[in-house]
């Protein structure tokens, strides 16, 4: 493999693995605030026990998010140095702001939230939970601002030495792409957290243990799940897609597998892209829906890939097509499952409906897949550009870091992260196995994941 490919896989692997943790912690931070708020309002101690239980799962995932996140901040320089040199004046800004505004806040108040319950008033402890939530959501925002600038560069100018500079701070922060993507992404994080919480709830009920807590987890998880799954499709997904169609029409054509421009373009629900023949094999398609989704009218013409020069087509088209369809397909399934569960919850039948509890229990990995596939859609759709329309991916990597070196460190991360995965399973299993009741037990060592 050539150096460019290896540097791309290096970044893709480390960022994909890293994001398995923040997508849960960002969503869970919100749900913990919900539980703490319920505890304040109802004075029901079970909500506090629940919050403590989820804080322990939060802490383990937060730790893995932190240790896998540190390499990300450095990899721009190590593996993508030319990109960093040219764009550091722009994207270095949100990245540095993430450190200053979010990481300090999160790390400080997480400790306070985890250890401080006995020392703080009920309200102050609720406040610490809110600050952890705010910190993690600020962090997500600055990362999305960074990515959004690469997807849709705004408020910049090119200096004579080939370096980009910001022309307007607020222009950078108010990039419409960033806000649409942020809404869609944070919704996705809440979907992950809702599924994980509902899944543990379903587990406890099916196991006939801790069913009081199981009901709380299911209720909070399913309500948050219904809201986030619906909002994930409409309005956030819909608006983001329409904005993308306007600004990255090639990516949309690639995602949908639309090789030829058409009036009343169909939407392909499934199929296999055939690049040679420029068609979709074995398609299941619904006529005119794509035109309607993008332009609101079934007659509108949608540009296909043939409308653009081939050197601007997304470089790994089948992967783009599949990841988009996996994301969209799973998103539809989530909305359906959560709607059914929500309906049964409203009718008071959810806790005994084993035919729904089982799918809820088994579905917790799927939001991780959907979130990953969504990010793959965004980032593969951006190709062959590193910064859309400005810098090609082939120009951005570290020319002095050879293919072998990159492969070596990639293998190192693969090995290291395999160990992390095993530890994660052990720790999370241990917490779920002990259950929410053990919260009164004093931890031996006082560290973040051991409160």
């Amino acid at each position: 493999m050539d150096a460019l490919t290896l540097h791309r896989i290096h970044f893709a692997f480390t960022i994909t693995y890293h994001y398995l943790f923040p997508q849960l912690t960002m969503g869970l931070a919100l749900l913990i605030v919900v539980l703490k708020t319920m505890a304040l309002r109802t004075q029901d101690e079970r909500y506090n026990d629940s919050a403590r239980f989820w804080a322990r799962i939060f802490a383990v995932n937060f730790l893995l998010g932190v240790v896998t996140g540190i390499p990300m901040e450095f990899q721009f320089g190590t593996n993508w140095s030319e990109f960093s040199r040219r764009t550091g004046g722009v994207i270095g800004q949100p990245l540095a702001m993430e450190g200053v505004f979010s990481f300090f806040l999160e790390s400080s108040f997480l400790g306070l939230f985890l250890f401080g319950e006995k020392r703080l008033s009920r309200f102050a402890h609720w406040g610490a939970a809110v600050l952890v939530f705010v910190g993690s959501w600020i962090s997500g925002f600055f990362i999305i601002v960074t990515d959004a600038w690469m997807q849709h560069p705004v408020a910049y100018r090119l200096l004579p030495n080939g370096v980009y500079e910001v022309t307007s701070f607020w222009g950078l922060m108010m990039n419409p792409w960033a806000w649409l993507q942020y809404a869609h992404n944070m919704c996705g994080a809440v979907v992950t957290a809702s599924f994980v919480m509902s899944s543990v709830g379903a587990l406890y009920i099916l196991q006939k243990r801790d069913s009081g807590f199981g009901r709380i987890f299911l209720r909070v998880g399913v309500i948050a799940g219904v809201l986030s799954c619906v909002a994930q499709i409409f309005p956030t997904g819909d608006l983001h897609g329409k904005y993308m169609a306007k600004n990255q029409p090639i990516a949309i054509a690639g995602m949908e597998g639309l090789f030829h421009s058409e009036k009343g373009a169909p939407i392909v629900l499934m199929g296999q892209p055939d690049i040679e023949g420029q068609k979709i094999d074995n398609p299941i398609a619904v006529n005119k829906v794509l035109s309607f989704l993008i332009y609101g009218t079934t007659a509108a013409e949608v540009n296909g890939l043939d409308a653009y020069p081939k050197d601007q087509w997304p470089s790994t088209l089948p992967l783009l097509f599949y990841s988009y369809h996996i994301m969209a397909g799973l998103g539809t399934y989530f909305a359906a499952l959560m709607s059914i569960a929500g309906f049964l919850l409203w009718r008071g039948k959810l806790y005994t409906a084993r035919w729904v509890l089982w799918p809820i229990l088994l579905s917790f990995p799927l939001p991780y897949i959907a979130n990953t596939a969504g990010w793959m859609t965004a980032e593969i759709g951006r190709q062959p550009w590193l910064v859309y329309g400005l810098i090609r991916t082939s120009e951005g990597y570290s020319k002095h870091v050879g293919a072998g070196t990159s492969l070596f460190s990639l293998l190192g991360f693969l090995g290291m992260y395999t160990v992390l995965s095993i530890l994660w399973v052990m720790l999370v299993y241990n917490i779920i196995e002990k259950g929410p009741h053990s919260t009164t037990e004093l931890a031996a060592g006082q560290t973040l994941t051991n409160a």
Partner: protein
Amino acid sequence: MAALWFWIVAVMLAAYVVLDGFDLGVGILFPFVARTEDERQQAIRAIGPVWDGNEVWLLAAGGTLFFAFPLLYASSFSGFYMPLMIVLWLLILRGLAIELRSHFADPLWRSFFDGLLFFASTLLAIFFGAALANVVRGVPIGPDNYFYLPLWTNWRTGPNPGILDWYTVIGGVMALLALSLHGALYLVLKTEGDLQLRARAAAGRLWPFVAIATVLAIPATVLARPDSLHNYHDHPVAFLSPIGVAISLVSVVIALRKRSELGAFVSSCVYLIAMLCGAAAGLYPVLLPSTNPAMPSITIASAISGAYTLRVGLVWWAIGTMLAIMYFCIVYWLFRGKVSQHADTYGH
């Protein structure tokens, strides 16, 4: 404005060294000073609630370097590729070791993570020292402003250095000793009982080695990069750093004798800051010296971001850092006092 950002990054790095330095020092020392499981827990509890926040200074400094001096960030991070990857892996292992040792009560499980914490902390201290020495000595910068350093070449400084040579090894050992002392003084300040007594004894034994290494480091630096003396020539005010180093090093010992725990720890903080200031004063306005006489060094002027970026950055940086300092005050205030031998609450 450009010079201001040089000092901002320097201050953030100094904050990282002083704060995470004591976590690393505790990680290096605790197998030697904490003999029982209770004492080991006590040592871990002394850094447990703060290590993550301390490490954030490294991330924040990295981000600030990225946006204020993109060229330096790009060139040095790709040039020091392999050691940086190792540092990243060590940081991962260190975080895991601190957090995971207490999850299971099995003595083997705990011994494993204790060993891991010692291993990762020791190597991190050596790597950070060697990294700083690399920056002081300089690297073979190419015509495109990039370079790539092998782990070692002929162990000599000069036009074709490696990441490890005699000078950077001294830097690594220097950092290992200085951070061990720093960690020992932190344990003296934050713990009580036998652990504290042994930490105090360790500090007393480490001090002479730190003093010798400090005295050696000065001629070594002049040999490795004679230009280091220029600024000291032109701006005698720079001599405040070596004077600060000397005073703080002596006051560590005096404070230890007088049983002033806070005094000794603060002196050690001042010592680390003065050492870093001395290095920064020797470099300024160079950021990364070139060992190749035909190629210019990377300087503040060649690496700095645009004026607007820096102006805006100053506003949010000032606000953000003020907030960060406020959070640190809250956390350290709540965590004030001694970590007892059988603590189960946050702080005392």
